[in-house]
């Protein structure tokens, strides 16, 4: 564990203490929650040498609660808890589904949703569902509270709208309504414990049984941040749904993404898989609606 000689670790037990340390130390300190990604990066030397603010013991940041039309999730909540939460499975299903795929069970037990968001890997599986669920991130500091919609939170590759004295304390997602359906899809190189080649979250609002009143689609691992597939969304909203319109709409996703070549796949492959993933996802949503016996 090189490069970490002489670091200080602060381990506050309350949020108040943590915020005070952040006010005092600001940039000199790096927040560590579960640490499942951070520790690996530190071993690699990717992280600059900083003292650590270990917030893992701040239990008051672990919760899943009902709000007005929303579900409020404490930033330290583990993915195991999110995946198994009855509240989330009933009202924000796609987030629970994504939580189940972020990694092995041991990782799910320790990694936190807040950590995943702040680590900001473009391939993070929790982020696309949060996009389509209109998530709002609650940032606290000694000064007060800021609420930032998730789409404004990410300004570029690993560039976040968060000040050095702020701590992400809560993620608030919209509750899915009766006439809404969603799906989370992940394409990786192996079934167990894989980093996504492409992932996607889709959320639709039905207009009757055969059209979408509203469509939200977010994709990961195909751009420096998670992106909304606005061209697809436009192509689907209010349109008749048949094989040709769905394929057309899915194909438009290439306008919204900018994938790169890397060890997991080429840009070309990712473009094609994005189209496929959306096509598959849309049909699954439609088929589920039809099977529901309407």
């Amino acid at each position, binding site marked *: *564990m*090189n*490069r970490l*000689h002489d670091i200080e670790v602060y381990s506050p037990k309350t949020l108040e203490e943590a915020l005070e340390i952040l006010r005092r130390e600001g940039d000199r300190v790096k927040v560590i929650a579960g640490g499942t990604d951070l520790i690996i990066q530190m071993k690699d030397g990717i992280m600059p040498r900083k003292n650590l603010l270990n917030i893992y013991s701040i239990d008051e940041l672990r919760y899943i609660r009902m709000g007005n039309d929303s579900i409020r999730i404490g930033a330290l909540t583990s993915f195991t808890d999110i995946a198994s939460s009855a509240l989330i499975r009933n009202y924000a299903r796609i987030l629970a589904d994504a939580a189940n795929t972020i990694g092995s069970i041991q990782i799910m037990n320790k990694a936190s949703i807040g950590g995943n968001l702040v680590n900001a890997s473009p391939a993070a599986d929790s982020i696309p569902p949060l996009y389509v669920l209109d998530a709002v991130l609650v940032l606290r500091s000694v000064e007060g509270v800021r609420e930032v919609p998730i789409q404004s939170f990410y300004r570029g590759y690993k560039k976040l709208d968060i000040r050095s004295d702020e701590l992400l304390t809560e993620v608030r997602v919209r509750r899915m309504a009766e006439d809404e359906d969603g799906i989370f899809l992940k*394409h990786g*190189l*192996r*079934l*167990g*414990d*894989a*980093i996504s*080649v492409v992932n996607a979250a889709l959320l639709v609002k039905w207009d009757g049984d055969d059209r979408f009143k509203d469509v939200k689609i977010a994709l990961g691992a195909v751009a420096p941040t998670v992106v909304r597939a606005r061209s697809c969304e436009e192509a689907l909203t209010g349109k008749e749904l048949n094989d040709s319109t769905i394929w057309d709409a899915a194909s438009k996703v290439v306008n919204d993404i900018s994938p790169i070549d890397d*060890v997991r*796949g*080429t840009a070309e*492959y990712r473009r*094609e*898989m994005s189209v*496929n993933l959306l096509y598959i996802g849309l049909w699954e949503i439609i088929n589920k609606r039809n099977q529901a016996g309407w």
Partner: protein
Amino acid sequence: MMQTQYVGSPVKRKEDPRLIKGESTYLDDIKLPGMLYAAFLRSSYPHAKIKRIDVSQALTLEGVVAVYTGKDLKDAVGPLVVESINRGSKVPSHYPLAVDEVKFVGEPVAVVVAEDRYVAKDALERIIVEYEPLPAVVDPEKALEDEAPKVHEDYEDNVCFRWKKAFGDVEQSFSNADEVIEARFRIQRLAPTAMEPRGVVAHYDALNRILTIWSSTQFPHKLRTWVATSLNWPENRIRVITPEVGGGFGSKLNHYPEEVVIPYLAVKLGRPVKWFEERRENLQATTHGRDMIAYVKAAVKRDGKILGLKVRLIADLGAYNYVYTQDNPLVAARMIPGCYKLESIELDVVGVFTNKIATDAYRGAGRPEASYIIERTVDRIARKLGIDPAEIRRRNFIQPSEFPYKTVTKFVYDTGNYEAALNKALELLKYSEVRAEQERLRGEGRYIGVGLSSFVEVCNFSYQSASVRVEPTGKVLVFTSTSPHGQGEETAFAQIVADVFGVDMDSVQVIHGDTLAIPYGWGTAGSWTLTSGGNAILKACKEIREKMLKIAAAKLEARPEDLEMREGRIFVKDAPDKSLSFEEVAGIAYDPESIPEGMEIGLATTSFYVPNLTFPFGAYAAVVEVFPESGEVKLLKLVLVNDVGKVVNPMLVEGQVHGGAAQAIGQAIYEEIAYTEDGVLLTDTLSEYLIPTAVEIPWMITDRTETPAPNPLGTKGVGEMGAIGLAQAIVNAVEDALTPFDVKIEDTPVTPAYLWKLVNAEKKE
């Protein structure tokens, strides 16, 4: 109640109690008083001159005891030993720490010794190395081009060795052919990736002048010889001990830089020193496997008879030869004929230098490559000629009556019955049903495929020693020069010994991994432990048994041939009341007052067993579903029929097949050691080098046929079978599934991106 026949029975392992409790001692568990920790600084360049190394900053770090570079060690620690040297080959001198130039990513350039492992790693950061990058080459075919960057300045090109040989009349075969089928196959570079990385601890006892080396190695005796050579140290003053070793698969049977540097440091610093590898180092600088390209031409008749082959094999050897680097390509070449009767074969093998760590043994060591090449070729031929893949194999098999069979490449296969194994596999597969299902699903736009692999392999290369002692209280000690690390021979050998002496397995203790206690032998690799080690033990036990029967005969006033040894007693067959216990006879053997006149005291003997090569074989089948839209492959069914001769412990045999098969699945679909064109290693963590997890491996159906081998145990070898036989069955199945698309799969792994590209390249035309 004592079991009367252990051999052949699935006895629970003696190894397990300590392992399931976490009580055993692996290399990193070793803690000696005053022990220091070493860390190696490694090159991140594939090829560069070392202009300058400044270690002064590192030396000032609190807790650092010493820092050495290649220049510091050059005169004291000699080049590493290479044993496999083909005629006319070039063997570059390989110093443990790079001196003037680095030639592969991960090559060590300096070593730090410190009070604890974290400080040692900290110090690495403070070493300043000034590199002058040089052009690197990582593609073996590019390395053979005229203008290619040279890996070794002193050589005129990047060729390590060439071997070209024709057996039989190749031109005649090709002129008689109805068709010539051509193919290119690329078998990728793999990392053996034992779950326990490598490590070394060394301790020098200055009082007794013994240098003790603990290494996570498969070859304790050979390592001792190699270290004696490199350090110029008397072999009988080195003791190599293997602690519990967490897997090897061929990556731990070598002569590594750390295995000479750490002992040298222990002597120099007068304190024990430990080094334990990190996984990144393991993926960079522990030897890799496979990495061959084959160009095949097959001369065939319309009825499927294969007359002859022309094969050009390009082997990517890496920058330096390690001990057995030059072996794999030649073993591969000579095993290409496989299970078939060929009239002729032309083999043109070239071993190429590239800027990578060496390839060397990796589970199968040349035989997976051989069976991959021939079995993929046979399926291509079958498809071209419109003959069923099982049928075409039958038409070319060596027949049971023809054994021992001398192949066209001059191996003598001892025993075999390839058709019986194939038929059994097809039966378990429900072959005709699968074909019908394939047809039906194709109509629905779904693509399933069947792939076969009929293969034979060669093993049992090396001699072993066995020292057996029956002690005065009747307990048995067995010292074996083999070095099992998961294969279970502490159990299997005890089964053999218990049967010979008619005693309980609990009275038998098998010891391995200490060169001080055990006479010379070859450790564990090449599927040889059970057969070579076991036969050596059998030989020694039989000698002692004979002596014990003589003693008992004298005491019981019978002839030795009338006596039986069973259930802990030695008794007259027709008069079982006339008996002595095993312990009693043992006690007599050590008692000068009781031992019969003229007989020598003691029950202890050492035997060496030199094996003949033996040829296990098998027939595997894979059923897959391929999804052309994404390129994903799903394994639906795997059938593995093995013939490894007689079997001592069927449970252990099956376990070996499972493990090898899982590695073959990795080879076929998931694993690849990948470099950029400039030589940067992309896959240096387990996030990028994808080893199959439990969800990638389906339930495997295994079975056996049994064609005994002509050695006293009747066994052959099983350790590498799974890794040798399965990859091509899977790839054949994928190609079969994609028949409507008419794709030719050249490369492995068949990643989704690769398959998708093949299918769509087809579509675009």
